[in-house]
Every structure is written in C-alpha cells, then in structure tokens.
C-alpha cells in the first residue's frame, strides 16, 4: 500500500475511560479489538492443546493393533471431539483472533464496527467449550458419531449429543455475530483512500470468509435443530419410517460443511499473501486475480458438497456434476499457488520463520489439494471414502495449510503485537520440527488409506501396523514441538530485542506505520491512504 499521512502525529490523546476496569474485569468487559483478538488467540491455543491431547490419545491407541489403552466407545468420542474442538475451537477462533487484531489496523479503522458485540462474539465461546468438554463427563459420554454428526448414530446417543448440539448453536451464534462485524467493518470503516482494490489480501479473504460464514452457519444450526427435534420431540426428518431420510442430513450438513472447509483456508490464503511479498521484497504478483480467485472459490464452494457423499448412492449424473464442479475449484486454487510462486520468482528472498511457514504452506497445501483432486474422482473416491486417505488429505490442507499459515502469521505479527522480536533460532527450530513431524505423521496415512485402512477405528489388521507406528511417533513429535511454539511466544511477550515500527524490511501495510506495540486505540483519526 502506498504512502500514508498521519493527520495526528504520535496519537497523543488517549481516551479518558473513566475508571476503565482492570484485572480480570478488563478482559471480560473489553470493547477493544486488540484485547478481544488476544482473547481469541489464547482461547484457540488452549483448545488446540485440548484437541491435541485427544489426538495423541488416539495415536497412542493406534500405535499397535489390538485394543490397549481406551475402550472403543471412548475412542469414538475422542475422534468426534477432536474434530469438533479443532474445527470450532482452535482453527476458526484463531483466524477470528487475527481478524480482530489486524483488520482495523490494516484498513485504518479505530476499532471494529460493533465493538460491544465483538466482546460477546468471543465470550460465547467459553460456554460452548464447556458444553463440549463437559459432555465427556455425563452418562453415556461425549458424542461419538464423528464430527459430522450423521444420523442415525446421532439420533440415538445419550445427552452428550444434546450438549454438542447446543454447543454448535452457541458457536454458530458467535461466528455469525463475528462475521457480521467483520463484513461491516470492512465495508464501512476503511480509511479515506483505502478503496476495495487497495485492501490488503488478508482483509479481502476475510471479507469473503465472513460472507461464507453468514451464509452457512445458520444452515448448520438448522441441521442440528432437526437432529434435536428428531431426538426428543418426535419429528421424523432423518427417519425413513416417517418419510424422512438420514441422507438428507448429509446433504444439509455438507451444504454447510464444504463452505466451512473454505472458511478455514481462505484467511490462511490471506495471511500467506501478506507474508510472501514482504520476504520476497516484491509486490504480490496478480493482486486482482487473487481477489477474483478467492471470490470464485467462495461461489463454487456452494455447489460441490456432495463430493463427501459419493458412496451414499446418488444418480450418476449427480456424481458427474459434483465431480467436475469439485475439480473446477482446483483452477482458482491453482491461480493462487502460481501467483505466490511468481511473487517469489527473482525476489530477493530471506527465510525468517514467517516465510518458512508460508513456503511450507505452499508445498504441503498443494499436496493436500492434489489428494483432494484424487478424491474428487468418483470411481477412485468410492474406494477411498472413509479410509485414512481422506484423513491424510484433510490434515494436509488443515494442519500444513490452515495451521501453518496461523503459525506463520503469528511470527509475522508477533513483533508488532508485543513490541519485541521473537527468538528467530527457536522459531526456525519450531518450523523444522513441525515440518518433519507433520510429514512423518500424515504422509504415511496416504498409504494406509490406499491399502484400505478404515478411519474411525480403534483396532486394525496386522498389515497396517508399521505405518501406524510411524504415524504415532510423528504425532507425538509434532505435539511436543508445539510446546516450543508456546515457549517462543511467552518469551517474546516477556522481552527481547525491540521491534521497529516497520518490523520487516519489505512490510508496507498500514499496521506497520504504527509503533510496535501499537497504542491501545489506533487510528482514532483515520490515516489518508494515497
């Protein structure tokens, strides 16, 4: 973004909040986008560790064939809750945390458009998390039908399922309010001169993500509401005897579910699009094509949902339609990958931790995209559905995709947020450990899936033992490496080399015109963007 004028130098006037609350009350009542962003990020990190413990328990059980650690029922609860906690508790809130911190600063706004509602969006999450985690401790245990909550399993389980349903309702309300806030902020709060096509890509991708969220979260709410009434009030939406159909749930769920996976990746695209140009010291290649690609992905994501259901039985014409529509998404996705690569082409690159994660993202996310294309091919998917191949696919796009982008984004903006440089050596170590252990964990799962190992099972045939052992070792390595991440962050918050305003040599977005750390209220008077 071009040169920037500050009408008010130094932001001398702090708001005189009469008796602004301190201590815990500050965090419970805050209307400040930076505070709320911090809350989101810490919450998501805690959920990440919680979901991680579940994952490691799963991998410990799968270390050898046979049942050793946990009961099969509990194993199913773990896989279900691992998915729900990671999707709704870790990845999504983390991106909202980034949106809160960054969007107002990147478009030169004083805060989010609805600052008080913003607080509520966050504080709805802890009750939802309590419902989810608490469901382990009620009779019958947590939901165990998979994170997709398919009936008839989900219409049969105990009250853990009801707690999950209400948790989904609450998290949905939180997401919708958060998204309305983001859309309104982006559309209405930009500094003078910040036209839509000058917005940093992170802002663009979040605008489109928020639109997706507003469109599909209510559909999920509807789906789980029908589950609830089927369970307790005698409706027959998902019961053939009453004229309904369990497959209908899958249609409604995936109408939400596929856009949902893009909700988890589009902001990651945004973060990577911020990082790559800075460390390649070249402007982003094909800015406008990035915007159009993001929009096309969002639109197409509404017409591909049935690729998750190729084996439930559907007309061949429908299979063909959903196969081609799915493959079509690879085109705009490819545009993005090529643009990032072209941005690096002949750039004067350096490889600090954010850049390492961004490049790791490009490699591994693309691999996940490829396995996605493989799964989109109907005859192949009929063999691979519900196998470990699918698990491998979505961990490549979600862990080495979304999560790596989150790591990269954290290192990229941490100096801005804390005012200190993080420990580069440790951060690079974190990257390499994550990179290696991630692949050790998940690459072999492709082979397991191709060989026919089903997902969601606590026990398996002997021939799968070797790859499972490798995968479990990788998983523990990956999990432990994340403690290093925590350590780097804490160390950076407590001190370290002072960060300059610009932090990174090539950084030119608005937040890098502010001091590091930025004042509590930034851009109370909007900057003029030229």
């Amino acid at each position: 973004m071009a040169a920037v004028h500050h009408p008010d130098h130094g932001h001398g006037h702090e708001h005189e909040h009469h008796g602004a609350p301190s201590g815990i009350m500050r965090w419970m009542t805050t209307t400040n986008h930076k505070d709320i962003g911090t809350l989101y990020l810490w919450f998501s990190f805690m959920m990440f560790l919680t979901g991680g413990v579940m994952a490691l328990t799963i991998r410990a059980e799968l270390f050898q064939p046979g049942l050793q650690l946990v009961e099969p029922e509990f194993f199913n609860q773990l896989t279900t809750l691992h998915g729900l906690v990671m999707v709704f508790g870790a990845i999504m809130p983390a991106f909202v945390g980034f949106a809160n911190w960054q969007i107002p600063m990147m478009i030169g706004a004083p805060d989010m458009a609805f600052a008080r509602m913003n607080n509520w969006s966050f504080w709805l999450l802890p009750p939802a998390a309590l419902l989810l985690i608490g469901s382990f401790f009620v009779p019958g245990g947590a939901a165990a039908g998979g994170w997709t909550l398919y009936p008839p399993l989900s219409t049969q389980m105990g009250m853990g399922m009801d707690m999950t349903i209400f948790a989904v309702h609450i998290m949905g309300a939180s997401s919708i309010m958060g998204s309305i806030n983001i859309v309104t902020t982006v559309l209405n709060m930009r500094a003078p001169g910040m036209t839509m096509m000058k917005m940093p890509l992170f802002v663009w991708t979040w605008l489109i993500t928020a639109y997706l969220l507003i469109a599909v979260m209510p559909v999920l709410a509807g789906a789980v509401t029908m589950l609830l009434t089927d369970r307790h009030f005698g409706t027959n939406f998902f019961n053939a005897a009453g004229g309904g159909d369990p497959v209908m749930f899958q249609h409604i769920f995936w109408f939400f579910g596929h856009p949902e996976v893009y909700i988890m990746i589009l902001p990651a695209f945004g973060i990577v699009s911020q990082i790559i140009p800075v460390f390649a010291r070249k402007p982003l290649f094909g800015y406008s094509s990035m915007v159009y690609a993001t929009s096309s992905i969002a639109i197409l994501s509404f017409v591909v949902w049935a690729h998750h259901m190729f084996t439930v039985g559907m007309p061949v014409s429908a299979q063909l339609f959903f196969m081609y529509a799915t493959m079509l998404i690879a085109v705009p996705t490819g545009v993005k990958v090529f643009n990032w690569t072209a941005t690096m082409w002949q750039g004067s690159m350096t490889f600090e931790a954010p850049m390492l994660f961004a490049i790791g993202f490009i490699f591994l996310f693309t691999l996940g995209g490829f396995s996605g294309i493989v799964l989109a091919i109907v005859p192949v998917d009929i063999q691979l559905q519900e196998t470990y191949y699918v698990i491998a696919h979505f961990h490549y796009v979600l862990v080495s995709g979304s999560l790596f982008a989150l790591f990269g984004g954290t290192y990229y903006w941490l100096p801005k947020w804390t005012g200190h440089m993080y420990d580069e050596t440790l951060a690079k170590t974190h990257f390499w450990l994550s990179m290696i252990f991630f692949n050790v964990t998940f690459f072999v799962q492709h082979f397991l899936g191709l060989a026919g190992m089903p997902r969601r099972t606590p026990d398996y045939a002997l021939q799968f033992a070797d790859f499972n052992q490798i995968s479990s070792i990788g998983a523990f390595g990956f999990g432990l490496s994340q403690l290093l991440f925590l350590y780097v962050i804490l160390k950076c918050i407590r001190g370290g080399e002072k960060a300059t305003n610009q932090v990174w040599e090539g950084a030119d977005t608005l937040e890098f015109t502010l001091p590091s750390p930025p004042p509590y209220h930034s851009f109370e008077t909007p900057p003029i963007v030229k």
Partner: protein
Amino acid sequence: MNQETARYYVPAPSTWPITGSIALLFMGFGAAFSVNKIPAGYWLLTIGFSILFYMIFGWFRTVARESEAGKFNDQVDKSFRWGMSWFIFSEVMFFAAFFGALYYMRVLSVPWLSDLEHKILWPDFAGGWPASGPGITQKFTPMGPWGLPAFNTFLLLTSGVTVTWAHWALKLNKRGQLKWGLFLTILLGFLFIGCQAYEYMHAYSELDLKLTSGAYGATFYMLTGFHGFHVTLGAIMLTVIYCRVLSGHFKPEHHFGFEGVSWYWHFVDVVWLGLFIFVYWLV
C-alpha cells in the same frame, strides 16, 4: 461536524455481553438437561432465560440512550444498516435449511419410499403429498390454505402496509399518524399470533395433525413454528419501538431503530408468503 460526532463511536467497556454469555451457559446446560428430563435442567433454563431477558433489556436500553444522546454519527448509522441487512440474510439462510428439508422430503424421500423398490418393505405406502411416512399408521388431515391461513396472509400483508405508513409519517414528522400506524401493526401482529395458536389447537384436536405426523407434520410445524417465533420476536420489537415513539424518540432524519425493526417485519412477511405457497397452498 463537531468534535463529538466526527469520531466513530466506540463504546466503553460493558458488562452486558458477559452477562449474556452467563445466560447462555445456563441455557445450554439447562436445555441439554431438560430434554433429557433431568429436573435441575428446568431450573437452569429458567435462570438462563431470566438473565438473558435482563441482558437484552439492559443492552438495548443502553443503545437507545446512546442513540438519543446523539452519539451515533452517519457512519455508525451506516454500520447498523449493514449489520441488520446481514443479520436478516443469516435468518433467510436459517429458513432455507427448513425449506430445503421440505423440498427434499416432498420431492425425493417420500416418492422414493413408495416406489417399486420399496414395495417389499412398505407394501401399503402410497406416497404422494401430504404424507406422513410408511411406518406411521395414524391418519391426519392436512391444513388447507383458504380458511385461517389466507386470513393470516391478509393480516400480515396489511401489517406490512401499516408499518410503511408509520415510517412515512415518521419521515414527515407526523407523530400522530406514526403512533397509529405502529399501533395497528402491533395489533395485526399479535392477532396473527393468536390465529396461529388457534390453528395449532385446531390441528392437534380436530385434524390429528401433530409434530409426530411424519414428513408433513414435521415440516409443517417446524416451518410455521419458527416463523411464528420470529413474528413474536418482531411484534415484541415493534412494541419496544412503540414505547420509544411514545416517549419521543426518533427524528425524521435519524431513526435506524425504527427502520431495522420494520425491515425485520417485512422479512417475516416474506417468509410467510413462502410458507403460504409451499406449506399450505401447494398440497
């Protein structure tokens, strides 16, 4: 513009959101326990709802005061407009899920269950619409469109006119007509709710049409039920606006509170037209 309103209004720290979260914590656990018939659930639910009502009341009172104190400049006003529009869009998508379920059951699953392949399983199921389902033997009579539902359509459409009349009066600063227009809208709204309640009683006692009556019953009650719930919310919101009008709130050029509620009212109106056509009429 003076210094006060030149700036975008960012509210000071507030306890309303966290109060609402505590309410939802109680409500979430309360609802989960209640549907499983654990007595503590009803208590938790009651406490939760009480806190929620307290919060909604307090929060909106704060916003109304801020508005009357002139803290919202044009940019804030525009934010409210965007926010309300997207909120209504999310509501549209919520109803879309249930309309989608209606479509799926009517056009796909019920015909499938009565086709040749399923004859071995369900020899007596004729399919068609309105249908309950092959495993449900209890008969019911569907709800016809031309009695009470048509009258209800008339009520809601008229209320759309009266709320527009009130809006027009507000812009011309004709407070008398504004009050009448709003009053009539609220009256029509509550009349509609009364008619719906009567219709449900009629359906349960005379038509044997129940929530448990398979495909037709489930879609009928869930769609009309959620709509009725939204009409109730809308009518309450209109009542709040009416009280604000009585105490002199809103100006001809500055009255988003009024407009937001009237948008919402038009939205429930439009949903009703969809219901009238697809749930009542096309049987």
